[in-house]
């Protein structure tokens, strides 16, 4: 095995190395050093940025691991997306960790990096085993992270052992342990959905006799067992993505878990879930996605409708953004339901837009709540006057989420609607654009709290430098790419186009195990 066969995997490998570096640095640094958190966080961000830069330099296209992994523009796009989300997630969490878990910061970053490694492998996986392993690598660290800053009464207690995260069930009995409750919910739902996915995959693989995507389906109509299996996989993945009717964990977890972590959880793993969905349902079906797009379209319609409607009465902004996230994923599924390369590229664009808008909104929320505020609408009262920067940022993120022009979210929705319209999903486009107005209603309720309600306290929330930087980066990206969407659109189109030969041709995807074996 030469380096060349590993080259497509160089980005995830680099992040793995980064995770180890952070772990070692954590060991090397004196435990009581005051600068520990800054050093570790800064190191993580620097390493992630380095890999991000490398992604523009290194050519990662090609087959790796005997065709089990394919690198192309699509995987590179998602890799960058995860790297950016990871870096923003670390920046947003630094001060929070320093305050609530000063001795366990290195592990947080390491776990986050491992999760990112899993995410980065998912979009290029062409073997179901690799897909499942990568997917679990993405998911398991998240269960731990969700419980990370649980009230933290005993500061000496370590949760470095992943198995200890399961103890969260006990912590949930404690009077105030929302993080533990959130973690156990995330874990139970995650484990259940993994089980469902695996069961479904076992049926599919059992019928096909291979774990390679290329061999899963022939041109003939799938057997009933295969259909059942695929529906189970769809249900399992829908849990992860959080779309109706598998969405109820989303608002609960968002409400309970530490907000900087939710900022990350609400974007990156969902993009990972979407990537997995694309792998199994569009690439795996060998150019015959037609059988499944109806199911995906139904989920899209249900998510857009239910998510938007259930967000309306929420007063806790985390829950509101949770339900809005359900709706947003509905829009992404609408793009997937087109089943063509253009739709996929719009989905990629949408997810990128969603990273900046949704993370930004959560980080602003965190900034307000961290300094003695609350996460509900009342806590945001008069934010624009307490801190014009936070107020303006929040408004920008909300408008972007709502899909208002000159924010990136507008282009994201526009491109998806256009692609869906071209694919003939006119009814869903109408439904989606009407529901976008409903969405605007509740986003404006948040903006109303920040802009129209008199502030209950005058002082601006104290915001740490790293958190401020993360919010500013999100703001610049959401507004800058909103004004000039061409670069992102080009690269998303390229990403979608790189999948097109596995989509448009009637034959199975051109990935065969013999191609690169030596």
């Amino acid at each position, binding site marked *: 095995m030469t380096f060349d066969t590993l080259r497509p995997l160089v980005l995830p490998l680099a992040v793995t190395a980064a995770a180890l570096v952070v772990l070692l640095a954590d060991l090397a640094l004196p435990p009581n050093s005051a600068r520990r958190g800054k050093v570790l966080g800064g190191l993580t961000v620097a390493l992630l940025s380095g890999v991000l830069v490398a992604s523009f330099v290194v050519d990662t296209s090609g087959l790796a691991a005997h065709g089990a992994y394919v690198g192309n523009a699509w995987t590179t796009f998602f890799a960058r997306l995860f790297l950016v989300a990871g870096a923003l997630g670390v920046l947003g969490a630094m001060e929070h960790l320093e305050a609530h878990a000063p001795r366990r910061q290195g592990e947080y970053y390491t776990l986050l990096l491992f999760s990112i490694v899993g995410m980065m492998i998912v979009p290029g996986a062409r073997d179901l085993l690799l897909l499942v392993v990568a997917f679990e690598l993405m998911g398991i660290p998240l269960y731990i992270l969700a419980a990370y800053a649980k009230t933290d009464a005993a500061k000496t207690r370590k949760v470095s052992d992943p198995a200890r995260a399961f103890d969260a069930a006990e912590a949930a009995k404690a009077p105030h342990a929302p993080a533990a409750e959130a973690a156990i919910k995330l874990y139970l739902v995650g484990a259940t959905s993994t089980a469902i996915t695996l069961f479904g995959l076992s049926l599919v693989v059992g019928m096909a006799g291979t774990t390679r995507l290329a061999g899963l389906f022939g041109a003939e109509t799938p057997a009933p067992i295969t259909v059942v299996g695929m529906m189970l996989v769809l249900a399992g993945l829908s849990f992860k993505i959080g779309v109706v009717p598998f969405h109820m964990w989303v608002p609960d977890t968002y409400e309970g878990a530490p907000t900087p972590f939710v900022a990350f959880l609400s974007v990156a793993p969902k993009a990972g879930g979407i990537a997995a969905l694309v792998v199994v349902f569009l690439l795996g079906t060998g150019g015959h996605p037609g059988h499944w797009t109806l199911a995906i379209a139904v989920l899209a319609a249900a998510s857009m409708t239910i998510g938007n409607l259930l967000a309306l009465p929420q007063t806790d902004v985390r829950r509101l953004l949770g339900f809005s996230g359900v709706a947003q994923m509905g829009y992404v599924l609408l793009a997937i339901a087109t089943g063509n390369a253009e739709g996929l590229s719009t989905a990629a664009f949408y997810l990128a837009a969603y990273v900046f808008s949704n993370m930004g909104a959560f980080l602003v929320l965190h900034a307000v709540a961290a300094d003695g505020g609350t996460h509900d609408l009342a806590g945001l009262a008069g934010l*624009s*006057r307490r801190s014009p920067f936070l107020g*303006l940022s929040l408004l920008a993120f909300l*408008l972007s989420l709502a899909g*208002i*022009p*000159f924010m990136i979210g*507008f282009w994201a929705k*526009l491109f998806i*609607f*256009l692609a869906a*319209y*071209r694919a003939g999903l*006119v009814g869903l*486009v*109408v439904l989606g*654009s*009407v529901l*976008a*107005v409903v969405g*605007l*209603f509740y986003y*404006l309720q948040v*903006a*109303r709290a920040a*802009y*129209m309600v008199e502030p209950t306290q005058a002082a601006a929330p104290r915001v740490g430098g790293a958190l401020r930087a993360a919010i500013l980066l999100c703001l610049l990206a959401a507004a800058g790419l909103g004004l*000039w*969407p*061409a670069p992102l*659109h*080009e690269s998303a*189109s390229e990403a979608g186009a790189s999948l097109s030969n596995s989509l448009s041709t009637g034959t199975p995807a051109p990935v065969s195990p013999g191609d690169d074996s030596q």
Partner: protein
Amino acid sequence: MIAALLPVIVAAPAVAALILLAIPSRYAIATRVVSMAGATVSFAGSVLAAVHYDRHVGGLQMPFDLPLIPSLGVHLSLAIDGWGVSLVLLTGVIIFAAVLASFTVQRRDKEFFIYLLVLVSGVFGVFVCQDLLIFFLFYEIAVLPMYLLIGIWGSSNVVPEAGPFRFVWKIFDVGGREYAAMKLTVMLLLGSAAILVSIFVLYQGAGATTFNLGVLGAVPYARTTQIIVFPLLWMGFGSLGGVFPFHTWSPDGHAAAPTAVSMLHAGVLMKLGAFGVIRIGMMLLPVGAAYWAPTVGAVAVVNILYGAMCAMSQKDLKYIVAYSSVSHMGVVMLGAATLNATGWNGAIFQMFAHGVMTALLFSLVGLVYERAHTRIIAKMGGFGTIMPGVATFFTLAMLSSLGLPGTAGFAAELMVFLGAWHGSHAWWTIPAILGAFVTAIYVLRASRAIFWGPGPSEHFHDLYDARGVEWAAPIVLAVAIVVFGVWPRLLLDLIDPATIEYLRDFASAIVRQP
């Protein structure tokens, strides 16, 4: 230099808003100077555009093009024709006056100017944009800041419970400023949803390579497509243009809005809707427009009459002016529905005339409200003796509203009515003129009740006339009313060539209809 004129007009208010962001809010004077500078640059630019526009050549002039998303064919392409010049001029006059009228805003004034200026950038953009998608973007920009402007700086009204939708009172604070703001935003954005879907149809039907209005206008869309899509555009844009029955946001919105916002909204934003119906709906879908024109005209007549009737039964001064806008926008739509040169000239002229007149009315209502703290007409009376200046301007605006010869309103309504008479449905003219008659009744009645009659009650003895900078806005607007009323050719020379050109395209599209 002229080539960059349009981008400058569009960008100046937005740039001023960006500069405002950097100014600490305690510097009230600097805030006003910067806002005024932004508005002045746009105003001067629009006058310059009107002067430089070569009316003998006609067509689109001063083009500016910047590819935004080349792979989809989205270009930021600006150019201006005779209609655009008139409406840009209108916007320039009104933003100039509106910024002046906002000098008295005390609370969170910096933010107020920021939203106001961003909104105006959007309005300018719509009038000069030649790319359908960017047109839509600017349209949204022009609509959305309204939510904050009304929600934060608006005033709440008491609206008595009535009608079949009485249950709404239990859920919402009907008449409250936040209710008005939300109602306006949601109704207009539902319209936008219809527009967006229509844009997809048009773009895809033309081969999905460009959003350029000129190119799309030459595409012969199938007859069924046109007949299905035109009403979508008509209702979508019409919701902003105050088309019955999608006008219900407008009285609440205008009444709740602060002075400058009412001026802009009734003066310019409603025109965006009517402009959209004509420029996008009728020019891109001529066959659909011809098919639906009888409906558009009939609904416009309903607008005129129903709006006037509603205005007559209002007790709140701002609601009267707001409903009169609904009525007058009906005149614009009636002119558009005639599909002949006189009618279209009248429609565009009425946009200008009504814009200036209603802006003047709202600015004066704002002045009266600031002093008397009431808008209920029954409580007023005899204000003319203590605020003679305001009374004079108010009367002038009211007379233009009822179409008195010598004011801009007369020329506009005359052309529309003539056009309607010569059109295929001459009967439209009769109820429309009846509407103008009703207008005269409520206008004169309101004017008398507020300014004339027995002197003001004890309660209002400390009122005073407009002072200092407060004069500026009424004077600018009143001059426009009189100048363009006495000498309508000044504007018609700009409007007419564009109308002829558009009408020629329209007629040839009908002839070669698929």
